[in-house]
């Protein structure tokens, strides 16, 4: 036992000495680009004698059912066009998508291409040196067609590409609206109209709005959907993250009170805190709830189950007068190329192949989800609800706020805070204060990320 203690003590001393030793070499600086060569052709990888294996870790079947089929087909076609390239695609679960990549990044081993949500979900890993900028891998003429590039732009460089669009309409059941005495052709547009609709729907024994908060994600959605309405730009939230504004300022804090109003008006299912996000969404499909803050990527799947006539979409009713209140939330989910990939050019070639016209149209046909590319053949959109959404995507699109704040703030304030609001444990004012405490803690614990955020916020 004495010897064990001596050994452990020696281990700790060695560790302390090593911790003070020469620091590890820094990752590639954000402004350095990999050595440039001529841009590859759009659908073919550069001629290479050696066999090339690309590994893709991706997510998306969960959000856009049919994505797996499309991915398998796309890989097969790319491999046919590039016989020396083989691609292994691994579909990640929602819970493993981020931690698996962080582990790979720590070991500098893993996928060549990684799936990312937009904004900070991509850029945190770019700041950590895990991604390469794409300017020298994908020509500007190609990049300009990709939608929502701004979500992946930092320090003047593009750190990933968009793949498909994911928007957040408010989805409602016209039949239940009619039963409650509401006009489905004229859904609620204002906050008071929404609360009135909740009262009427409760009157017929139907849950007005369904949700599930147990796994936290829906809390982040509610932040993005509601907190935007008192702002003109998502840059306000970036400014508050770096300390130039405060989350306790009235225009930041108001959304907590508005959410509480909906709760007090009986708009939500009582078991919201004990259901997962998906279970909450399922309540709408099962006809147990009249409205849902949904995702337009699910609509085709829902329609396959309940029919297009059992749903319609509306913009989120307004309480605020900021410019963002009139926008339709849409983000481009996408991909990035890792800094340890031995075949970045081949990886870029595959990303560009995903954006060829045949693949863009096939994506929409397989999933019913819009690709993040303006070369998509819009004649393929025949369903009226999808036409309505596409109109919003192209005319009144606005940023998804969750992508413009640190993930720690999203989880420790939005996820946890919304749960506490519905549990009745904290007031809206206390939750605004919690957000400010969390962001102050984030700034103190993450000096490097703070610097990067400051650059980004400009």
């Amino acid at each position: 036992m004495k010897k064990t203690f001596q050994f452990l003590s020696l281990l700790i001393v060695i560790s302390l000495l090593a911790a003070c030793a020469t620091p590890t070499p820094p990752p590639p600086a954000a402004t350095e680009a990999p050595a440039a060569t001529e841009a590859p052709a759009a659908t073919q990888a550069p001629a290479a004698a050696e066999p090339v294996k690309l590994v893709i870790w991706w997510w998306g079947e969960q959000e856009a059912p049919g994505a797996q089929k499309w991915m398998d087909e796309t890989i097969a076609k790319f491999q046919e066009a590039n016989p020396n390239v083989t691609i292994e695609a691994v579909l990640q679960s929602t819970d493993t998508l981020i931690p698996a990549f962080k582990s790979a990044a720590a070991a500098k081993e893993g996928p060549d291409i990684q799936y990312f949500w937009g904004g900070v979900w991509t850029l945190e890993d770019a700041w950590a040196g895990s991604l390469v900028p794409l300017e020298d891998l994908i020509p500007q003429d190609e990049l300009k067609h990709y939608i929502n590039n701004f979500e992946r732009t930092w320090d003047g460089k593009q750190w990933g590409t968009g793949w498909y669009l994911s928007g957040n309409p408010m989805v409602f059941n016209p039949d239940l609206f009619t039963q409650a005495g509401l006009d489905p052709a004229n859904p609620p547009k204002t906050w008071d109209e929404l609360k009135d609709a909740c009262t009427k729907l409760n009157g017929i024994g139907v849950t007005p709005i369904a949700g599930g908060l147990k796994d936290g994600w829906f809390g982040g959605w509610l932040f993005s959907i509601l907190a935007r309405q008192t702002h003109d730009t998502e840059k306000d939230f970036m400014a508050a993250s770096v300390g130039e504004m405060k989350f306790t300022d009235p225009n930041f804090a108001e959304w907590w009170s508005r959410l509480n109003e909906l709760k007090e008006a009986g708009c939500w299912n009582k078991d919201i805190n004990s259901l997962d996000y998906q279970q909450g969404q399922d309540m709408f499909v099962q006809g147990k709830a009249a409205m849902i803050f949904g995702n337009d990527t699910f609509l085709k799947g829902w329609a396959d189950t309940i029919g297009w006539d059992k749903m319609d979409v509306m913009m989120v009713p307004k309480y605020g007068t900021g410019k963002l209140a009139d926008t339709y939330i849409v983000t481009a989910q996408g991909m990035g190329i890792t800094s340890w990939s031995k075949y970045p050019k081949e990886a870029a070639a595959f990303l560009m192949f995903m954006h060829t016209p045949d693949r863009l149209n096939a994506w929409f046909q397989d999933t019913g989800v819009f690709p993040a590319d303006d070369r998509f053949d819009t004649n393929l959109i025949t369903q009226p609800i999808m036409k309505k959404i596409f109109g919003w995507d192209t005319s009144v699109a606005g940023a998804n706020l969750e992508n413009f704040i640190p993930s720690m703030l999203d989880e420790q304030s939005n996820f946890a805070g919304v749960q506490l609001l519905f549990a009745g444990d904290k007031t809206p004012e206390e939750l605004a204060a919690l957000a400010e405490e969390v962001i102050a803690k984030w700034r103190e614990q993450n000096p490097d990320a703070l610097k990067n955020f400051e650059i980004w916020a400009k």
Partner: protein
Amino acid sequence: MPSRTSKSGLNNPDASLTIRKGGGLPLPYRPRKKFWRKLEPWLYLAPMLIAILFVFGYPLVSLIILSFQRRLSGVNTFVGLTNYKALFKDDVFLQAVKNNLMLVITVPIMVFIALILAVFLFERIRGWQLYRTTLFLPYLLPITVVGLIFSYIFQLSGVLNEFLNLIGLNFLALDWLGSTRYALPTLMFVIIWKEVGFGVVLFLARLMSVEEELFDAAKIDGANWWQLQWNITVPQLATVIEFFTVVSVITMLSWVFNYVFVMTGGGPGNSTMVTELFVYLMGFRYNQMNIASAVSVLLLLVTGFFIFLELRLRAGTSAAEVS
């Protein structure tokens, strides 16, 4: 040992004739052979030791190093105790520690339940073998499966509440997992339900090795049931109770991640956050590997203390038995 300079030393060709042992053939003095004899077991152990050092030792050293560093200008820089100080100002971490300590409070309850059940099974009631198997079965189930099933059972509109409403006990149909007040106790219940079987089997196995004459003699002397348990059963089970208690404490401090992750995700509102989940979130969601490392080091020290305690108790017990 014979002196080298004496007639009986190494250089003395007659040395082998001067050393005698037990009247048998004289044993020549051979220090080199003694050295190899001492070294031999270590040579056999070396491959495994190297593997263990590589698999556990290297990450452990890296972990400790990381905990004293922070990323500044893209470089991991030594910052002393900054990460540790930051932890003790972090409300979420402090909540996690508090919750782990609350879980430790369930250990005496678990030990007591396991003891009572083992004693009843030892009474050899009819069907005791079936009961033993039934009690041990939860312990064999994967935690993820148990967590998933109970997360459905304990939903506000779940099976339990539906049943309680059906039998008129509506006032008990609470939001077990959705309320900050009830989520942690609900988790405790599930953990006890799953882990108590291990204690039952341990205690029962020990009881079955106790000499029956002890119980018979006590009964002859007029001891009642309670006196039998207090004066014979519990003392006989002392070492096993110690072991199960220490193992359970270590479990509550560092082996509840799966329960929490599956059933509550640390919510609602961090009310079921535990240190392991905090490490996971810090390291793999928020990109703060240094802070996660600091928490891991603290967890290692605390669990290391309890492991040391168990080994000391065990050594003390063995010494007492020998004497």
